[in-house]
């Protein structure tokens, strides 16, 4: 589960399209364990940074209302094929992960 992420980034004319999935349970803290009846503690990603050339092109602030295994898609300009895009995240328990992807043509 930990640190798993899929990133696809490619050039669409002069823009860069990005699609990414981060594998994370995104527990709201309101769900109950069916066996024990106890609440499952909240566990969700709070912040995601998408960085190109040292510049944050998209910063996501998330709450527990974001679906499990969150998906994001966005578009930005100023990059070229072969450049690296780095996506990193942190969650409310202090876990973090990051991954780099090459932007394809």
């Amino acid at each position: 589960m930990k640190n798993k992420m899929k990133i696809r980034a490619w050039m669409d004319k002069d823009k860069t399209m990005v699609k990414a999935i981060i594998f994370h349970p995104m527990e709201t803290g309101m769900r109950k364990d069916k066996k024990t009846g106890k609440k499952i503690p909240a566990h969700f990603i709070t912040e995601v940074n998408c960085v190109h050339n040292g510049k944050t092109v998209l910063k996501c602030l998330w709450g527990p209302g974001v679906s499990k295994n969150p998906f994001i898609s966005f578009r930005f300009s100023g990059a070229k094929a072969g450049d690296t895009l780095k996506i990193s995240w942190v969650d409310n328990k202090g876990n973090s992960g990051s991954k780099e992807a090459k932007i394809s043509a």
Partner: protein
Amino acid sequence: MQPQRRTLLQASMAVGTVALAAGAGLLSPRAVLAAWPKQAFEARKLPEALNALLGNAQASNSDQVTVKAPDIAENGAVVSVTVTTTLPNVESISVFVPVNAFPLAASYELSDVTDGFVTGRIKMAKTSDVIAVVKAGGKLYSAKKGVKVTLGGCGG
């Protein structure tokens, strides 16, 4: 509000908690965005969440903001939402579900090279509007889209 009291509060407590940052945010919304806006995410009502996140609870409807979401979501746990805007100088795009326990689902901060377009997947407790609020040039613009949820996505 009482801005002075807020400043005092912040000054008297050196602990840099997120709640304090959000309190100070009433003076400068930018400061809130520096840290995770706990107060906004824990707000139980839409206007509170809006105010805590963007420092303003008033957003005007705009046809330059579009929310794309399914008419019917069979599974409220995964509702794909795309927000697009043609407004210039977009600073952030936020997605709210008013009927959820915590209306604020996600907020995206855009850079000057990022297009006014973002897709994400959110949870919806029941049938409701999905509200997108775009902050552009210091003002708030909103649009909404009704989604019929046949199976709720919060709680178990």
